[in-house]
């Protein structure tokens, strides 16, 4: 069976089923203080040292909206092309739990602050767009600590009231790979615009995946929600397991029950926490303590004017200014640091495409091997530009360039020119010396010369190879070709 170049729906079917995935992501907003109080939000403090009277829901306390959280929501909406609601409503989600001090969570229900929009990314070389339903502001709950106390539970309210932006997609994703690519792109956007630190271990970026399967053309299947996917690796494993499990259930004649499930990285399995039957009635109603959130057009425009260039805008600029292919431009705008590294290299070398090739090739390979980011690159953009200049002006070959890069990476030299000099990597541009080598090789291989003259092109290539070898790789292959053809052609 042949694989088409662009994956069609058919090729994505799993045992004849279409996979449907939607995401809900909680991005913790990078404000100094909480969403409705002035307590700090820093991670890792001693339990209950960062919770004030409002966070503890002491009698008489009231919420006051943190403008910084609203601005971050506006920034996100602008980054993904959403409608910023001029008037949105905070609602109370009522339920009892010890780590929920007020007995309700302040969230947005019917009218969220960010409406619509889309996240665009490449899956392989295919461009994808996942539509957003909404993004709304809400407060986080505290944490229950079940391990530290025998027969009792501890409550840490440091996290209570931490601002979250819950970002909800349409069920637009059709594979675990696409889901992970979406999550990575979303992660890139929120960290790029600086509204979230993106730290998944600390829970700053938590994903819930709604997964269902159906026969192509059938109505949507019953979904199960996988909660708290805190790494991209587990995300893919969990979704893949869930897809297999759902298909097997259906194949075995057991209909899927709507449920919330958790992924256990140790077993690689998902298991149900609660089913729809015990779903709570949250009794949402508009929070009478908070007037509607009114965002005047001027506020949106001010936020827009203060925002950094967005990745997709920057990618378009890379295409138009540096004539990069769209794929290169998208790849290079994976992070702000990566984009800055590229721009510095491209400008210093005057060779944007070569800079892109080297960064996406040699540089990325080494960063990936070391699992580090561009910030930790052992070759600076200036060093790389120095190397690229020498390739572009013909001083060294690509092959020699890789040797120079290796040396720079291993700190065996400070800059390309010094290494080229020290290692004698300059291409042989001296025609006299090259002619001498060619003459020697022609003289030593009369058989090849005869065969070439008899019409065998392979014999010519063999001679070129001999000449390159004799020049220790420093000869310019094009020049060798030209001179040899003159001499024996």
């Amino acid at each position, binding site marked *: 069976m042949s694989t088409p170049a662009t994956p069609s729906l058919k090729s994505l079917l799993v045992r004849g089923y279409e996979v449907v995935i939607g995401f809900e992501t909680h991005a913790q907003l990078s404000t100094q203080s909480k969403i409705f109080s002035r307590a700090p939000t820093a991670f890792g403090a001693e339990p209950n040292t960062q919770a004030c*009277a409002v966070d503890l829901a*002491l009698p008489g306390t*009231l919420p006051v909206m943190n403008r910084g959280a609203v601005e971050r929501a506006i920034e996100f909406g602008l980054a993904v092309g959403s409608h910023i609601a001029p008037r949105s409503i905070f609602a109370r989600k009522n339920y009892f739990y010890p780590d929920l001090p007020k007995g309700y969570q302040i969230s947005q229900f019917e009218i969220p602050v960010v409406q619509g929009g889309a996240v665009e990314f490449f899956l392989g070389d295919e461009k994808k767009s996942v539509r957003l339903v909404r993004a709304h502001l809400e407060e986080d709950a505290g944490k229950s600590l079940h391990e530290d106390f025998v027969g009792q539970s501890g409550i840490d309210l440091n996290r209570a009231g931490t601002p979250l932006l819950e970002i909800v997609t349409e069920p637009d994703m059709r594979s675990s790979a696409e889901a992970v690519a979406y999550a990575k792109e979303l992660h890139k956007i929120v960290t790029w615009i600086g509204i979230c630190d993106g730290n998944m271990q600390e829970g700053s970026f938590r994903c819930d995946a709604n997964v269902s399967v159906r026969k192509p053309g059938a109505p949507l299947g019953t979904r199960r929600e996988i909660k708290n996917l805190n790494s991209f690796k587990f995300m893919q494993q969990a979704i893949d397991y869930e897809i297999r499990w759902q298909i097997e259930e259906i194949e075995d004649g057991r209909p899927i029950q709507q449920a919330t499930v958790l992924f256990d990285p140790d077993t690689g399995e998902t298991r149900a926490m609660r089913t729809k039957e015990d779903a709570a009635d949250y009794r949402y109603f508009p929070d*009478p303590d908070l007037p509607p959130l009114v965002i005047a057009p001027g506020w949106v425009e001010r936020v827009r004017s203060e925002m950094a260039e967005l990745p997709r805008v920057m990618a378009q600029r890379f295409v138009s200014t540096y004539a990069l292919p769209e794929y290169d431009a998208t790849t290079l705008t994976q992070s702000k640091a990566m984009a800055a590294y590229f721009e510095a290299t491209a400008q210093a070398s005057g060779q944007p495409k070569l800079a892109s090739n080297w960064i996406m090739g040699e540089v990325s390979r080494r960063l990936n091997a070391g699992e580090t980011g561009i910030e930790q690159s052992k070759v600076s953009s200036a060093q790389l530009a120095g190397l690229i200049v020498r390739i572009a002006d013909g001083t060294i070959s690509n092959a020699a360039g890789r040797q120079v890069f290796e040396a720079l990476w291993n700190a065996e030299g400070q800059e390309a020119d010094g290494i080229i000099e020290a290692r004698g990597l300059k291409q042989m541009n001296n025609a006299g010396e090259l002619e001498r080598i060619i003459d020697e090789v022609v003289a030593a291989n009369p058989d090849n010369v005869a065969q070439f003259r008899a019409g065998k092109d392979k014999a010519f290539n063999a001679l070129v190879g001999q000449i390159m070898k004799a020049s220790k790789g420093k000869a310019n292959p094009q020049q060798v070709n030209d001179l040899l053809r003159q001499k024996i052609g």
Partner: protein
Amino acid sequence: MHSASKPLHDLGVAELAASLRAGQVSAVEAAQHFLGRARSHESLGAFLAIDEEVTMNQARAADARLAAGTAGPLEGVPLAHKDIFVTKDLPSTAGSRMLEGYRSPFDATVVRKLADAGVVTLGKLNCDEFAMGSSNENSAYQPACNPWDLARVPGGSSGGSAVAVAARLAPAATGTDTGGSIRQPASFCGITGIKPTYGRASRYGMIAFASSLDQAGPMARSAEDCALLLSNLCGPDPDRDSTSLDLPTEDFARSLNDSIDGLRIGIPKEFFGEGLSADVRTAVEGVLGEFEKMGARLVPISLPRTELSIPVYYIIAPAEASSNLSRFDGVKFGHRAKAFADLVDMYKKTRAEGFGDEVKRRIMIGTYVLSHGYYDAYYLQAQRIRRMIADDFQQAFKSCDLIAGPVAPTVAWKLGGHGNDPLADYLADIFTLPASLAGLPGMSVPAGFGDGAMPVGLQLIGNYFTESRLLNAAHRLQQATDFHSRKPEGV
């Protein structure tokens, strides 16, 4: 030192503040005098907490400021707070077992603002549990007695506040009004009380009953005293209460003496229907006649949805309360059941033990009307009618400057008089609920006496932000009548 002709406890806030400034009386003397009265009238059930050391420390500090010339406008004036306001130095219970012994780490904004103005706190005043009630009989601690007839209720929920002022245990008190809780006890006890426009006074530190309705206000003997207190307790509080209005502080006493010649007073026909008892009607019509004598004109108006205000209020207020009271779960503060099997059992026992019947009733009603499948039919519908009620007032204010009518259909009823019939209590709120639902300022002004020689209150309702006009009309009435300065026998 005090040598005025009247005993100290007959002085109003304005007079007392002037005497304190003039050095005719010291803050310590005034505090001791009122603390002594509170002790000797304990059986009225007005106070839930008194701490003489706290009071005397405040009084001494007030005297020091008076001596140093740094006195606030109310320096040294004793005042007591409804126990719905949280206070650092005194327990804050909301009249509930749930908060027995609870100490707040901060003062309510209203408490702080009055302290900044110089008042000395006499203690915390009895009220219906979480301000839910209209007789003070829902206090978890003790009922309060009406000083005009000890066998009758003082009204509620700010019952303790009304008793303390009427019995001269304090020159003034704070109250809160959600559906009439300042106006109705003021009416029952023959004192003056005003609920300002919703958002005038910060709700920070008021233990919440129904957030969209709760509003603080002063209760005192005269409109003049209320104006003085209101000027000092209102003001924006943007860092603590998002519903507090961004309006500059006002001198609400500025137009007290303005003429009311030509004032158009709207008389809603729905306030004078069959449900109004004859004695109250006679008293209210009497003072309306006084207004006419001063040149005011009575204009017939209609507030057609007056009756609907009862079901609307008893959906919205319990809905908000059911959510506001969720924080009392035994986890963080307040009462927690001693023995329980698991988490859910802890919640159930804690709340079953900590809350009284009326609070439980409203939590259940509120939970029901917010439930999936009922929300639209009850809560949303109630909100729609609430807006119509507010619109009705705007329509009415096209033809009048303020609205007048009775505060309550009857005078104070007998303790236990409504028995176990909460509906009887709810129906008695009919005249105070409309202004609450619309967020309008309203006040109760003594208007004479009805059956059993019990006080009757006149209700004045103004358009938004027209407190000074209400106070002006009330003050002019009090210049022409002496109902507000009468006192119960034996006081």
